[in-house]
């Protein structure tokens, strides 16, 4: 069921909120063993919430997400619940407060079903670095769901929940959405409050939704977006009702840019053909397709792997075994306790990134790495600013490949290259949406990325909604 159907159904007393929740829980119980999309499931609490809604239906009728079950990535805090960030170091950490997004979801009647699996501290593109074991792609259980929000994407793709929240630092929403064949949005940096999101790279992190269609995606965004006084970097700009009038979109004359750099070597030819085929269709509908250049794209991954680990090395310093979380106190002194705690508490990839970041920020190297990377980041940002003077949207593949097999990519650099098409938009702080663009010949999902300028979420939703409609029609036309 879509979010719209659930909310309408509960309001009109066709279904009970409790039944909706129970159905989700049943699916999770029966099928998540093979997928491992959840780290924690709130069975009892979720049912109680459902009952509460059913009892107080009259007072709750205007709630936008009335009785909608949602899963939350396990790096977003839900008060009183375990929040692990996929790490041993927070294995038993109980959140002392609600993240702003969680508060907003609860206020609109959403029911949090559980917390989803993820790469440890969101460090990864496959959900294989989780302390709680890898998540598997529901489309093909041998394959990864992408990452780091692999659990969230998989939970929606498997049909456990209609929607989920993830976080995206360099592609962690868009790439798993692409791999699992669902919709996912990384909002403009600052559009959604980060308060209560366990920080990976503060200047890049954004929380965003997963869903099975554009309308649902827009509705979740409507609820979670907006200024938050607890996040100084959140933008004090009004939030449009994204789901309202979403069908009001005229494709005639809309300019779409295809950046050369995203269609060069290394892109799976089936993905490339599929994306270009969709663009052809859009052209037929009246849009104008233009080849564009984003010349600094080739530096994006390098820049990202300096900026993000640098910030991460500082953000992860607080996990020291002193205040909360895993603590190894067998050292002979304080310093050794720190070493032991962090040696045993963090996984390999987390330690790799902490070391990279610590190095990049060290005195004597700071100018050559961090500062230089920030300068190049500005150039990447400018590339997009220039491009959006000419076009309304940019379309690219979300990922150069379809989902790979679990254990297939072991080399860190190859893994880092998975995010080559999602990282530039993260560095530029612009919004990007993964549009599930069908399957390849092996039945594996292909993702199309729509990028827009800052705060153009509304336009992106309308465009995606339109695209959804014409492709549905295409499927129907061609049987």
């Amino acid at each position, binding site marked *: 069921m879509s979010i719209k159907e659930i909310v309408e159904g509960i309001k009109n007393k066709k279904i009970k909120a409790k039944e909706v929740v129970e159905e989700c829980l049943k699916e999770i119980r029966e099928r998540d063993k093979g997928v491992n999309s959840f780290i924690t499931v709130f069975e009892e609490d979720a049912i109680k919430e459902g009952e509460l809604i059913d009892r107080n239906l009259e007072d709750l009728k205007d709630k936008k997400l009335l009785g909608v079950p949602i899963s939350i990535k396990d790096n977003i805090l839900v008060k009183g619940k375990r929040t692990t960030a996929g790490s041993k170091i927070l294995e038993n950490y109980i959140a002392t407060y609600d993240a702003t997004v969680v508060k907003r979801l609860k206020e609109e009647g959403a029911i949090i079903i559980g917390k989803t699996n993820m790469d440890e501290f969101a460090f990864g593109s496959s959900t294989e670095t989780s302390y709680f074991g890898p998540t598997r792609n529901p489309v093909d259980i041998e394959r990864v769901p992408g990452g780091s929000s692999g659990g969230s994407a998989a939970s929606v793709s498997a049909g456990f929940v209609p929607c989920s929240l993830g976080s995206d630092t360099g592609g962690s929403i868009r790439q798993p959405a692409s791999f699992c064949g669902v919709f996912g949005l990384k909002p403009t940096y600052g559009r959604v409050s980060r308060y209560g999101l366990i920080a990976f790279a503060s200047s890049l992190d954004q929380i965003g939704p997963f869903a099975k269609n554009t309308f649902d995606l827009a509705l979740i965004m409507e609820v979670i977006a907006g200024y938050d006084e607890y996040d*100084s970097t959140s933008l004090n700009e009004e939030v449009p009702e994204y789901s309202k009038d979403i069908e009001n979109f005229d494709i005639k004359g809309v300019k779409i840019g295809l950046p050369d750099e995203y269609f060069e070597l290394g892109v799976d030819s089936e993905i490339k053909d599929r994306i270009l085929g969709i663009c052809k269709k859009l052209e037929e509908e009246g849009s104008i397709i233009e080849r564009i250049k984003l010349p600094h794209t080739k530096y994006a991954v390098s820049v990202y792997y300096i900026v993000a680990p640098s910030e991460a090395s500082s953000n992860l310093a607080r996990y020291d075994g002193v205040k909360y979380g895993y603590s190894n106190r067998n050292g002979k002194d304080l310093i050794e306790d720190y070493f032991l705690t962090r040696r045993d508490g963090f996984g390999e990839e987390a330690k790799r990134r902490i070391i990279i970041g610590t190095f990049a*920020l060290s005195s004597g190297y700071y100018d050559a790495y961090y500062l230089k990377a920030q300068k190049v980041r500005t150039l990447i940002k400018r590339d997009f600013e220039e491009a959006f003077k000419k076009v309304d949207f940019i379309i690219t593949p979300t990922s150069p490949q379809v989902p790979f097999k679990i254990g297939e990519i072991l080399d860190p650099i190859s893994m880092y290259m998975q995010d080559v098409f999602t990282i530039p938009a993260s560095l530029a702080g612009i919004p990007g949406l993964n549009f599930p663009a069908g399957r390849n010949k092996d039945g594996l999902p292909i993702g199309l990325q729509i990028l827009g300028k800052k705060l153009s979420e509304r336009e992106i939703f309308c465009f995606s909604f339109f695209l959804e409609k014409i492709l549905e029609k295409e499927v129907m036309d061609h049987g």
Partner: protein
Amino acid sequence: MMDWEVVIGLEVHVQLKTKSKMFCSCSTDFDSLPNENICPICTGQPGVLPKINRRAIELALIASKILNCKINRISRFARKNYFYPDLPKNYQISQYEEPIGYDGYLELPSGKRIGIMRVHQEEDTGKLLHYIGSRKLDYSLIDFNRSGIPLLEIVSKPDIRSPEEAVEYLTFLRLNLIYAGISDCDMEKGSLRCDANLSVRRKGEKELGVKVEVKNMNSFKSVKDALSYEARRQIKLLEKGEKIIQETRLWDERGGVTKSMRRKEYAHDYRYFPDPDLVELEFDEEFLNEVFSKIPELPLERRRRYIDELSLSEYEADVFISNKEASDFFEEVIKGENDKSFFKEASSWILNDLLGILNERKLSFNELKLKPEHLKELVKLKISGKITSKIGKEIFPVMLEKGEFPSKLLKELDMEQIQDEDEIRRICSCVLKENQKVVEDYKKGKKQAIGRLVGEVMKKTRGRANPRAVNEILRNLLESSP
């Protein structure tokens, strides 16, 4: 010793006088129980973000302004990364490349200017406890109440030339910060802390010597003692032909020596970088003007006003400015008055009577029952001649104890002045009769004998008569009788 010049720079940390912490809304109350004023933000829970306290920024701007600093129109917070259990995030939010203020000076009362390198804002750490009473624990306790309290770091240039001058600078800096409402600057409560960099060189030399950082000085006296010791130590070494090692030394109050703590070559690499959780601070002209328009009167301005406008002596003015509470009390007493004798009288009551009693009883002004309006009335009664000095001195301790207006107390204690002239005349006649000998002396030309008669009348009225009126009545009586 005579051939050497001591070069000192001071790093002063003061806690800003704000109700809430730097990045969260927890209270800054000093007297709370351990870990009473804490929240997810100031204990570094996962997922929290800092939220800037606007008042703290204003105070930092004011401090920069009164220290004649240039203001960075775009100022930024940076993370200072190091691991320590009292630092919950294992980084301190501080400022690095773009402090609020830089390149200023403080002009001492002597006229010498001490350069100010920078004024920057940061958050305080928690407090580690290793003892309960005198018992050393085999673990440590952490109190996060102090964690996140706004601090200002004021770094002077190496312009100070003696330990005495260091204390002079500190004293005057402290006074200015107190007057501007920036900090309580209470060293005992840790709201003012001071570290020093000290080097020595031969007089006339241009190059600075190797500097040593001196920490753990807990009073102005220990600053003076520690720096004097350290200067002597360095000079002695150099005179023996030895070298000074750049290091941090701790002042050992009991032993009266500085002891090596750590060598600078092991110094932390703090890996400063701009804090991505906080946006840049941008100050426009209008905002700055608004903030600066609220700067209260500073000690030197007040001193000048006391001397030039209120005609107080330099001594009185100096005592007042060094004691802001007394001076503020005085301000309340003289509010709305413009008579110089009133100022003089009010000042005298505070400096000569009140301060002594407060010191004796170890009380502060806010513990006082006596309110400025009570003293104001007393001063008025006194200078209008409605009470004598004697009555004043008698009633003052009662006012202190009861916290009441003198007029009310005088009435209650039957110490009011006798208004009825006939009554005074009657007493005067009586006194003349009883002191025939003095009257005769007077009539023989010993005019000053009248003083004794006045004294007798005052005695009989227990000081309740106006001595001037008594004098006049007696004179009339004496002149009119044969």
